[in-house]
């Protein structure tokens, strides 16, 4: 353990625990997912950074969206994201999640992912190297330290707007809103 960080562990142990146990949903979308298997296995070994893939969204706290998002995939992404327990962090991987990338004028690919779910950080590039994932992870540590990785709080706070945007593209959604407005406000007031 890094002795320089001892005070951080004493002051905010949960925050430090969140930082060093990032369980990523093994959710594959787009072409970026081709970078993920070498990243989590022996060549780059993401476990050095405490990142491990998790089979189910209900046990994960890091959502790496690896590439272009079609309308059908957006539905699955929202479902997966809403199933993850808080605190949860999302990272958009590749330029397609930022502005549509090379699919900016596609008839079936959404352009800006952060209109539909909150994103804590982006990795630019097409494709980003596996090393870029580690840069993103270390950057995410800094954000967690400074309480800036607050995507899940923003989602709760602005849930009505997010849900409206989702319904604009997906139409009728199969599941009811996960937050009632009053409940979301109450949780936000209690937990900040």
């Amino acid at each position: 353990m890094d002795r320089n960080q001892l005070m951080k562990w004493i002051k905010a142990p949960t925050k430090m625990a969140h930082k060093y146990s990032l369980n990523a949903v093994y959710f594959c979308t787009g072409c970026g997912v081709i970078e993920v298997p070498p990243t989590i296995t022996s060549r780059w070994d993401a476990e050095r950074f405490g990142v491990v893939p998790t089979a189910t969204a209900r046990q994960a706290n890091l959502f790496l969206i690896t590439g272009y998002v079609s309308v059908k995939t957006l539905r699955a992404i929202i479902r997966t994201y809403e199933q993850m327990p808080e605190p949860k962090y999302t990272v958009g991987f590749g330029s397609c999640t930022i502005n549509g990338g090379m699919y900016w004028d596609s008839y079936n690919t959404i352009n800006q992912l952060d209109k539909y779910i909150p994103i804590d950080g982006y990795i630019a590039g097409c494709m980003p190297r596996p090393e870029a994932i580690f840069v993103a992870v270390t950057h995410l540590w800094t954000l967690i330290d400074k309480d800036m990785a607050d995507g899940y709080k923003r989602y709760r706070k602005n849930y009505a707007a997010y849900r409206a945007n989702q319904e604009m593209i997906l139409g009728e959604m199969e599941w009811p809103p996960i937050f009632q407005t009053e409940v979301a406000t109450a949780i936000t007031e209690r937990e900040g």
Partner: protein
Amino acid sequence: MTNPLGTRLDATFKGVELRSGVDGRLAVVVPREAIVPVLTFLKEDGYDYLQLISCVDWIDRGEFELVYLLSFYTEDEVGRDGGKQEVLLKATVPREQASAPTATGVFAIAEPHEREIHELYGIHFEGHPRLTPLFLDRDYEIPPFRKDFDTKQYVADVFDRVPPIDEEG
């Protein structure tokens, strides 16, 4: 007309036009009504593998071109013709009345190919068992692979219309 298969096709069917393929394939252009008979003929002749069905939108000519690429699993059977070419079967369909006979009766694998073409080009396949959407999740006024489908306009109307989230509010 040196190709033996071409000679037999020409003798059997009316209105069959042969073009020598640039890449060693034999291109056969048939009228729309002759798609299924010619496919049946070719299947019995040893072309037992329908690799793909493709579609081209020739908007200036006002017609769609369906392309069937036929190949074979066993080389011996085709070898009796002396040639081991793959066959491209082409047929045109008018844009206004876009419908074609289904090939599912001859090749069962035609089912997903025709569903895809139906979804992306809006061509109706007569007698297809289930012409339901295959990939797309949304409804489009014009099928998206037609040349008169304006993708930029569509993106501006649909995806760019979604407002960004006002995080400060």
